[in-house]
């Protein structure tokens, strides 16, 4: 990452106004959004949106042609172009032909994408943004920092300062007064403008209509008062039928601003009368700017299902720390990273794609069902492929695969304490174990890896030995740092009458390689693990690391598909069918009556941290809570239990300035429960949170669910 990028992150996370405003907003948003969706089946709704928009994305040309025909039949002029410059020139010519000197604009991201304002201003026109936030940002000479709330990074004092300059009068930082001033100033501009430029939230092919959603009422004035109206519409806004606007209008206000409906929704079809009785000069620009290319790329077509609600920004644990400006372009946040890679160029996303911690929060709330984290990984893969891997990286991944050598190196690093210089070789290991972190202590690497300790475990299968065996997949952290977690798993499964085997050929799950875009390495890991884990006939392959579980269950297949290794997919599926995370298996064994958790009196009070992969991908948030509750642990839920702890594998090494404040929030939320044990199912989260408390000094213990269950079985024996 470049110094400039690191500096922009540094200044963002240290901007208390920004992080304060975004932090408070993200908390309020979560509550408001849930309330707005009361009584609505969100899954059903977003399935409809994904169908409507997905089908439109697959037929962009066709829909654009139908839209053009229908809109023109109603008297609008439609201009369609793939080229941003051609769009700018078309609008400029139109303005010049109509003697336009003053332009008022309601919100249009598409116009920002192509820098239209600059083009018109260079030609001597005055262009005024009229959305309050956009106007503030325009006066400040900045870029919007959020798609829906462009000026969220500014305080009222800063706004007062900016407005004071504009009207040459000292203004107080009083929000209602500032809004009133904006109304007055902009009203004059509305009344005098010869051209109004708007965006559109939806374009309906069947009727040739555009739908514009606003709260301030500026779009109504932009489309009513000036004699010429230009609507700039990205082609992905097209839908086939008028009825298709319903699911979008149901989701957009709820997801964007937690409203049931925005103050104004305007559906424009052809020109309507101007105030003087003449007919509006209505031009609709259908802009492509690489959207067609996206629609032809199966890995990215679904990005066109985005309805620009910005909910992916609002729930992102990283966005709420850094805000929009570090993204450097028109579109920000998760979806912005993807759009920038296409609308600008792949290279432009090189740094910002690294901001994604892959927690999957956005996937849960996206009304267009856009798999944002997967797409960001795909960008990472394409960037890595284009640039090639460094020799150091290649060597590092090689070592990861040599388990005993890797352990020995880590052990040496751990015992010698910082034996490798920060810029040295080990920094390039895609391994969180090797990192030198200032904000969290590292775990001691176990003297003996789990793979060697396993051989010494005397498995006591208490019931009639069942024929079923379970293969245990340890993953790096349990193997090398937390072997006691592995021993707890064996203990619990033995108690349920299952014998545990440890296929010695198992290696790294490949998640670090995959998350770094090194898919060939990840595929090598996948193949080695599939061979190792399918060798013996077992009922289950269990892992006590959710990230590894996701790799084994989902990512092996995805990696093979990405690389076109279709021949390997069947074996990956065979393995996936057997893979299960510890808590889900334990819960299943309890339900089947094979594992008995006698509720002992009040074991301890705990709180529970949901690991991202367990909750968002494996959908197991009830299971650990159920078994811990059955065992007699008393659960006190923490605030935001399912928000990322900031670990994200090597993320915490690459972007410690972001990882640290995310961890800090987690530590605070845990401490606020007043409980001194936090349970989690992820050894990565455990490492992050333990390291944090170690530095912090608070006496909070972090335990894996398997260990707490094993403790319970000890006590009731």
């Amino acid at each position, binding site marked *: 990452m470049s110094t400039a990028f690191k500096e922009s992150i540094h200044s963002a996370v240290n901007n208390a106004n920004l992080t304060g405003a975004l932090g408070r907003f993200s908390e309020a948003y979560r509550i408001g959004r849930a309330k707005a969706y009361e009584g609505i089946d969100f899954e059903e709704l977003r399935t409809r949106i994904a169908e409507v928009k997905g089908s439109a994305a697959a037929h962009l040309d066709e829909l654009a042609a139908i839209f053009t025909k229908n809109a023109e039949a109603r008297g609008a002029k439609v201009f369609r172009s793939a080229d941003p410059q051609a769009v700018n020139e078309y609008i400029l010519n139109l303005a010049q032909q109509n003697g336009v000197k003053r332009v008022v604009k309601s919100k249009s991201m598409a116009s920002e994408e192509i820098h239209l304002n600059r083009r018109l201003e260079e030609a001597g026109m005055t262009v005024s943004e009229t959305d309050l936030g956009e106007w503030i940002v325009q006066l400040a000479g900045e870029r919007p920092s959020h798609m829906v709330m462009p*000026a969220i990074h500014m305080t009222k004092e800063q706004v007062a300062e900016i407005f004071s300059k504009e009207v040459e009068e000292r203004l107080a930082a009083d929000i209602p007064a500032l809004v009133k001033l904006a*109304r007055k100033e*902009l009203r004059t501009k*509305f009344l005098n403008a010869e051209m109004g430029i708007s965006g559109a939230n939806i374009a309906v092919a069947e009727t040739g209509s555009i739908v514009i959603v606003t709260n*301030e009422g500026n779009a109504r004035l932009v489309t009513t008062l000036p004699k010429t109206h230009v609507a700039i519409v990205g082609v992905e806004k097209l839908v086939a039928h008028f009825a298709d606007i319903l699911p979008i209008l149901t989701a957009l206000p709820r997801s964007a601003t937690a409203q049931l409906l925005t103050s104004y929704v305007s*559906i424009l079809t052809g020109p*309507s009368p101007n105030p*003087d009785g003449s007919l509006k000069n209505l031009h609709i620009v259908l802009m492509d700017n690489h959207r067609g290319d996206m629609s032809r790329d199966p890995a990215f077509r679904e990005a066109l299902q985005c309805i620009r609600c910005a909910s992916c920004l609002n729930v992102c644990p990283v966005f709420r720390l850094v805000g929009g400006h570090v993204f450097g372009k028109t579109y920000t946040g998760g979806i912005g990273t993807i759009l920038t890679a296409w609308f600008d160029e792949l290279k432009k996303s090189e740094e910002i794609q690294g901001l994604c911690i892959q927690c999957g929060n956005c996937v849960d709330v996206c009304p267009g069902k856009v798999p944002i984290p997967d797409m960001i990984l795909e960008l990472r893969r394409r960037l890595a492929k284009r640039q090639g891997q460094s020799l150091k990286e290649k060597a590092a991944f090689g070592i990861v695969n040599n388990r005993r050598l890797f352990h020995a190196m880590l052990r040496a690093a751990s015992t010698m304490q910082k034996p490798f210089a920060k810029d040295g070789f080990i920094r390039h290991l895609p391994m969180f174990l090797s990192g030198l972190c200032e904000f969290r202590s590292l775990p001691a690497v176990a003297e003996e890896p789990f793979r060697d300790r396993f051989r010494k475990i005397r498995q006591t299968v208490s019931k009639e030995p069942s024929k079923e065996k379970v293969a245990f997949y340890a993953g790096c952290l349990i193997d090398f740092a937390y072997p006691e977690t592995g021993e707890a798993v064996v203990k619990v499964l033995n108690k349920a009458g299952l014998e545990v085997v440890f296929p010695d050929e198992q290696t790294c799950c490949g998640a670090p390689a995959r998350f770094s875009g090194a898919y060939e390495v990840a595929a090598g890991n996948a193949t080695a693990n599939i061979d190792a884990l399918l060798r013996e006939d077992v009922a289950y392959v269990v892992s006590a690391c959710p990230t590894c579980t996701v790799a084994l269950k989902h990512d092996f297949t995805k990696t093979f598909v990405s690389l076109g290794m279709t021949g390997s997919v069947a074996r990956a599926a065979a393995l996936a069918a057997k893979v299960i995370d510890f808590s889900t298996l334990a819960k299943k064994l309890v339900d089947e009556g094979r594992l008995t958790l006698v509720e002992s009196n009040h074991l301890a009070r705990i709180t529970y941290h949901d690991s991202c992969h367990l909750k968002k991908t494996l959908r197991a948030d009830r299971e650990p809570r159920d078994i811990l509750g059955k065992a007699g642990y008393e659960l006190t839920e923490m605030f935001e239990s399912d928000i990322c702890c900031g670990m994200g594998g090597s993320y915490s090494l690459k972007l410690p300035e972001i990882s640290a404040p995310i961890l800090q929030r987690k530590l605070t939320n845990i401490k606020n429960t007043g409980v001194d044990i936090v349970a989690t199912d992820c050894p990565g989260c455990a490492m992050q949170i333990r390291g944090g408390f170690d530095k912090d000094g608070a006496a909070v213990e972090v335990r894996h669910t398997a260990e707490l269950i094993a403790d319970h079985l000890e006590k009731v024996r």
Partner: protein
Amino acid sequence: MSPLFDTFKTRAEAVSAEVHRFGTRNEALDFILAFLRAEGVADARESRAVWVAGSLLDGVDRERLAEQIPGLTFQVTQDAAEASKVGISQIEWAIADTGTLVTDAAPVERRLASALPVIHVAVVPTGAIQPDMPAALARIHPSQSGYISMITGPSRTADIERVLTIGVHGPSRLVIVFVDELGGNR
């Protein structure tokens, strides 16, 4: 006794609209005239009122109304609307579950009266309330109107420090007057 109205009122008030309901046209007219007086409507810039005639005014002597309320005009031009504190228009449909008004706003007077003044008074037949947006959009379609407007509460913003502020570019008050006697557009 009318669950649709009750739902509408709850939802609309939740977004800061003011909701009134009258049985007869005369009661509604009296209310509006009293409202205009109370708001100090007068023949002075920014104190005028514009009224886009609808069925509420059928058979009503408008000249007399204009005499009663100096500053009130039924000639809704851009200048008149811009000089007005209050804009009155009749709305054809409402949506209960979001507290929304739906109107064919292709006639520009309707847009001017509902967008430029500080207060928008919307006259709605009580019988025109639909349960939800699909029901409303089954009654008005782009093939019939080139400019369909949906209005939910007054104009609002939260662009400065996320503080909800009412009245940016549109009206800061939306006063909805339901009239049972006007029937509906079901």
